[in-house]
């Protein structure tokens, strides 16, 4: 426990929360204000449950792991996308504004349907190991260079929370843009020798303006990624790689 947590007297927190239930006929988006007393070590997970329990039982939001691992609770916190569960209220001013992530389908209040968006993305990019060979799993596994395994894991840590999409300038203009989450996934599979797809195959998936050439390099994604994924360097790397493929067969370049 940090000492200042214990000694500080309780603050009154004011939450301004964007409310809207699309399933309720005639309901309209509006800001609602709640006041609660801060407790030590309070996260937005604790605060929102306090509001639901003591002020408004209909308030909708999503938490699952409440430990920063699963990516369920991404929302716009004081204008910036982030995970609510690992945001300590002590790190914020007393007036806190919460809104659902943009881009994704709204379920209600702070709850958005990232699941179907990510599923669509994964289907489109075929984010699985492409391999024809049959394995005999009684045999010793194929070796992999330890450093390479670590590098793949580094990118595999994405939790599909949607923060990078909410923080992306390109997505605002190009609805079909796959965003940093999509590009990072391709970078991950491109690294992985178990996936037998060629760079040409990847080019077919991301070699256009909805893919790697659409990124305007505003890099809001990297600023908001709660897992600190190296999105900037991976997007730059992919762009160089894909440009080379494109230049080999110029007809492929479609921008």
């Amino acid at each position, binding site marked *: 426990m940090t000492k200042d947590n214990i000694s500080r007297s309780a603050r009154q927190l004011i939450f301004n929360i964007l409310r809207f239930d699309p399933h*309720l006929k005639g309901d309209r988006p509006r800001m609602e204000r709640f006041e609660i007393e801060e407790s030590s070590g309070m996260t937005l997970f604790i605060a929102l449950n306090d509001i639901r329990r003591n002020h408004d039982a209909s308030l909708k939001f999503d938490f699952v792991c409440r430990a920063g691992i699963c990516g369920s609770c991404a929302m716009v916190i004081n204008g910036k996308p982030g995970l609510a569960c690992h945001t300590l209220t002590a790190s914020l001013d007393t007036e806190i504004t919460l809104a659902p992530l943009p881009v994704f389908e709204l379920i209600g209040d702070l709850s958005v349907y990232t699941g179907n968006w990510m599923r669509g993305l994964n289907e489109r990019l075929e984010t699985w190991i492409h391999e024809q060979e049959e394995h005999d799993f009684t045999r010793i596994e194929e*070796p992999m260079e330890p450093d390479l395994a670590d590098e793949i*894991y580094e990118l*595999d840590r994405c939790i599909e929370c949607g923060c990078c999409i909410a923080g992306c300038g390109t997505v605002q203009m190009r609805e079909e843009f796959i965003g940093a989450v999509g590009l990072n996934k391709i970078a991950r599979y491109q690294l992985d020798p178990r996936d037998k797809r060629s760079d040409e195959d990847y080019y077919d998936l991301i070699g256009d303006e909805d893919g790697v050439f659409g990124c305007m390099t505003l890099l809001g994604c990297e600023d908001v990624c709660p897992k600190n994924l190296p999105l900037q360097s991976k997007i730059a790397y992919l762009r160089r790689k894909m440009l080379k493929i494109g230049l080999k067969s110029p007809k492929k370049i479609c921008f």
Partner: protein
Amino acid sequence: MKIIYTDVLVIGGGLAGLRTATGVKARGYDVVVLSLVPPKRSHSAAAQGGMQASLANSAMGEGDNEDVHFEDTIKGSDWGADQQVARMFVDTAPKAIRELAAWGVPWTRIQRGNHQAIINTESVTINEQNQAHGLINSRDFGGTKKWRTCYTADGTGHSMLYAMDNKAQEQKIDIQERMEAIALIHDESSNGKQRCYGAVVRNLMTGELSAYIAKATTIATGGYGRIFSVSTNAIICEGIGQAIALETGIATLGNMEAIQFHPTAIVPVGILTTEGCRGDGGVLRDVDGYRFMPDYEPEKKDLASRDVVSRRMQEHIRKGKGVASRYGDHLWLDITLLGREHIEKNLREVNDICKNFLGIDPAEEWIPVRPTQHYSMGGIRTKYTGESATLKGLYACGEAACWDLHGFNRLGGNSVSETVVSGMLVAEYIADYCATIESSIDINSDVIEWFIRAEENKLDCLLNYEQHHQDKSPPPEDAYKLREAMETIMMDKVGIFRNGKDLQQAVDELQILLQRSKNISVRRSKSKAANPALENAYRTQKMIKIALTAAYGALLRTESRGAHSREDFPQRNDKEWLKRTIIQWPDANKTLPEVSYEALNIMKMELPPGFRGYGTDSTVVHLDSEKRQQAIKDIQDEYHTAGNDRFSLQNKLMPYKALLPPKYRGKNERLNERFDDDQG
């Protein structure tokens, strides 16, 4: 009224559910997976430290094999486990991890040459041989003889779940998110037996109810940790899967009192820091900074089995050696000795959790921890095939089930391993069942409609209490209050140390809560669609029942075994209690379930009950134990003189291979157990 037909319905989209689905799909059957959340957000993702499989690749895993893994698992279970199931499990785990490697999990790999490791606070050099370079690495975990826990840094569950969900997407499996099964549909089938036909399912976004009708229904919804006020479990681990099975009045639950407390969850929020912290060399310290575990357990020290470490911590706190805080006493987990580099690479989730939730740097400061509810060994009682022993067509696997791999204490690293292995095996048995005529769907649509109406009516009662109750009816109840009361009872009276007086009180109080829960009225939130208050209301009704099964089972079990520790009955009592608790709730109007017991047959065990190796041995011995030990010794002597290998000896002691699906019966290759080239 919407009715959806499929071959196999899987309730739960975590590792166990998804692996079941991919298995039956590969066998050519249609499958629908229902998940409360996008599957990649399931609680499986939170498993940090690793997956046990006896690959024996690493230097510290050398000599490991199925036999050693089996022995660790049985001892860990305090002899409560089903030994045939444990054998099936240890045999399949290496295949499971190699399959996951092919499906994309970036397992941490072995680097050849010398490495520094911390063992017993000393720096030790470990040399990895050339031929192991690039194979899957493993770390030390509690209660294991070898370093057997394979890992992806400390995001093992995450990387496994992502690979698994991606595989399911490749197979175009129909996964439906934000769907909750709230009742099982069951009836007498044409052959006169009770049979499960699917589930009534509520869409959590629109509130719509529909019926999913299937040849086989599989519950893979995880544990019931959230009946406690503090738990390491995700908030969706509410035991609803077990509850809907219980509410059939036919399906049974096993060993619900067997609940594990993990030694190192952070204070106060109860988020887990992996056992890998201690596996990699971290130690527990008390208020004086003193490392106390070696005093209690000189041999295994900080890496004794989880139940043992948790009890020792609690004991030490009771001696006044805890660190006082406004949230109660805690102890320290010290991983500073591992160094920043190791922490930032292999324990990065722990690093993040410490920084985000505690505001501390674990490379510099100690982590405040205390034992916290973590795992449910109990669950839906099934045969080794995953099928309910009493309700045909109902299957369960993973943490939701009790088939029974863990007995009264699960080893760290055996849980994610079990999810995948049980999914692999149960999928095959389900597919076999679907191929029989017996599995054809012979239910009348009026029965299906009756089940949907019944659920609609229950929800309506919750939303419109006044319309359903007359003037003199009891006052409406607040579900949040009842739930909090239940959680507190479980925390205070059904915790690490239990006693008859507290347990009796717990059972009495929970029965009152159960009665009151019939009068829950949802206030201030009347929508039939996405409505967190309504969801909390119907789940609370179910959770109180699950809490009762755990508390009642604990009250009746007058011994201490594994994680079930009775202060008034401190001995493990094999003579009277080497048996599984079986719970059924045939009469919904009663406030207590019916309890029976299933004896474990020592004379068929490969490893008869013995001393587990912690503290002093005070077991009340069963007469058969010595008899069986002698019989085993005779078989061993005979086999060793005849020069037989370990496989034929094992087969003589307790055959199990024939129980495995044919495709998973092969031996596992290892560096020191290479296949001949012509086999490959």
